[in-house]
């Protein structure tokens, strides 16, 4: 449904994308996971025909995004990172205008507004909508022309946890190929069949969530014990970290070993690696969890000059 080959994009002398290649199959939910400035939005803008790549090729729904942008536009629905609604018009009017510029003869506006839970707000001016309501309206709008691929650029950025949960449930119920970008790892873990981790304009890892976890190793067990167990590495907080393939098989052995050595285990924690661990493992940095932190550090940087 989406194929890109060595996609590059340069802004001035900054390379936002340094050669990105991937495929998204029909019916799949594919996530681009990475920190701010990794090139996620640039990729979305190229795939949705708003930016021309400096080099490389991208095929969306069977058409080249540079040579046949109109054919691509007809077949995709887009929810951009920043809202793109007419705030002075009502939900219904926004949908009606969308139907107009997409040439839909009998738009299922009311049906879709009901679907995203905005049936009662049909005639309310969008200016009065909360962030989550605007997002849902944008999703309904993007679905109005029955696209083959739905693009979502940071669909839950800046939304509170309950609202995110609502949007996630809405997206899970959709039966369409989805390309989404996010810097929330739980969003990618929850929604995506496959994930590409992107950093500095390059895909650094790609696969299903389980495959990506496999890069770090199996699972990690943290143990606090009264003595030495003779395995794992000791952490600064006194705990022992043991990397194993399958914790369920290893734990009985661990208890047996402790008994043999006469060591008492006081605390034990098993963790499957998260996508954040994967990112950390590959890049040595964390994906910033919170957009606010990023802004704060940007402001701090500016203040420091």
């Amino acid at each position: 449904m989406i194929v890109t080959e060595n996609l590059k994009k340069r802004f001035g002398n900054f390379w936002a994308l340094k050669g990105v290649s991937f495929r998204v199959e029909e019916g799949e939910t594919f996530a681009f996971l990475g920190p701010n400035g990794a090139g996620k939005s640039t990729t979305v803008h190229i795939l949705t025909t708003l930016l021309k790549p400096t080099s490389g090729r991208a095929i969306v729904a069977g058409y080249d995004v540079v040579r046949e942008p109109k054919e691509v536009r007809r077949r995709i629905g887009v929810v951009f990172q920043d809202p793109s609604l007419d705030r002075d018009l009502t939900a219904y009017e926004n949908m009606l205008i969308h139907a107009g510029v997409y040439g839909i003869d009998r738009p299922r506006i009311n049906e879709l507004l009901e679907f995203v839970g905005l049936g009662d707000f049909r005639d309310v001016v969008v200016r009065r909508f909360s962030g989550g309501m605007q997002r849902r309206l944008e999703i309904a709008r993007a679905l109005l022309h029955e696209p083959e691929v739905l693009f979502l650029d940071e669909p839950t950025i800046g939304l509170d946890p309950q609202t995110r949960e609502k949007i996630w449930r809405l997206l899970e119920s959709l039966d369409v190929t989805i390309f989404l970008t996010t810097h929330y790892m739980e969003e990618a873990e929850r929604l995506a069949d496959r994930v590409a981790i992107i950093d500095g304009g390059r895909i650094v890892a790609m696969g299903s969530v389980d495959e990506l976890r496999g890069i770090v190793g199996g699972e990690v067990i943290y143990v606090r014990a009264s003595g030495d167990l003779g395995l794992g590495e000791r952490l600064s907080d006194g705990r022992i970290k043991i990397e194993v393939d399958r914790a369920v098989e290893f734990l009985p052995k661990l208890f047996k070993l402790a008994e043999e050595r006469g060591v008492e285990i006081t605390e034990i924690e098993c963790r499957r690696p998260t996508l954040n661990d994967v990112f950390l493992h590959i890049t040595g940095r964390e994906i910033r969890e919170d957009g606010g932190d990023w802004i704060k550090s940007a402001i701090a940087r500016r203040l420091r000059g």
Partner: protein
Amino acid sequence: MRAFRTMVYRQLKRFFRAKSRVVGSVSNSLVWLLFFGLGFSGMVRGYMEILAPGVFAMTIFNHSLMSGISVIWDREFGFLKEVLVAPASRKESIAGRIFGDSIVAIIQGVLILLLSFALVRMDPLGVIPSIVLGFMLAVAFSSLGVYVAMKMRSMEGFQMIISLLMLPIIFLSGALFPLEAMPGWMRCVAYANPMTYAVDGARFYLTHRSYVPPTIDWIALFVFSVVILFIATISFERETIE
């Protein structure tokens, strides 16, 4: 044509939703007509006949040139992306928007024209051709507004260019004083101003006084508005979000 109609609908809907805008836009022209016009009439006999068609054109000119600012708002609030990513012809969308703004400008022009009839004796039959001329004027300057908005991108840049253009275009159009009162060189510049032909034409049909032959008014205004509209649609066609 669907995208064209849709964008006309959007501009009209937005205008009528903001009722204060309707009142605000007409009141400014009313100030010119009443205070400036009546004041000057004491000095120049029959000045109201000269001014009334001019204020009609000014009302349309002001609104249409300023309407470009909505393109900048759309960029800020993201709606522009919705249009850019749609499969509809961009030329058609922007032309629809320009026509929608032109209709809004004409509504205001007509409103002020009807009010002028209370103050000035004019030919009621002149209203119809004046509306057509006014519409062409509106298309010319809405297109210019859109073009400037696309080139400048920022609110400040747009406002700077617009305020730079606003007064010279008004003074060099004959809206406030007739073309024959201008020195020769000034008149030469006025001929390059599309608004001149709208003012002169409207004056011809409303007060039966004019400087340029009406046929020339029609042709010149038509050519100007088509050319500027064309330039605006081409530049919108090429628009990216870079």
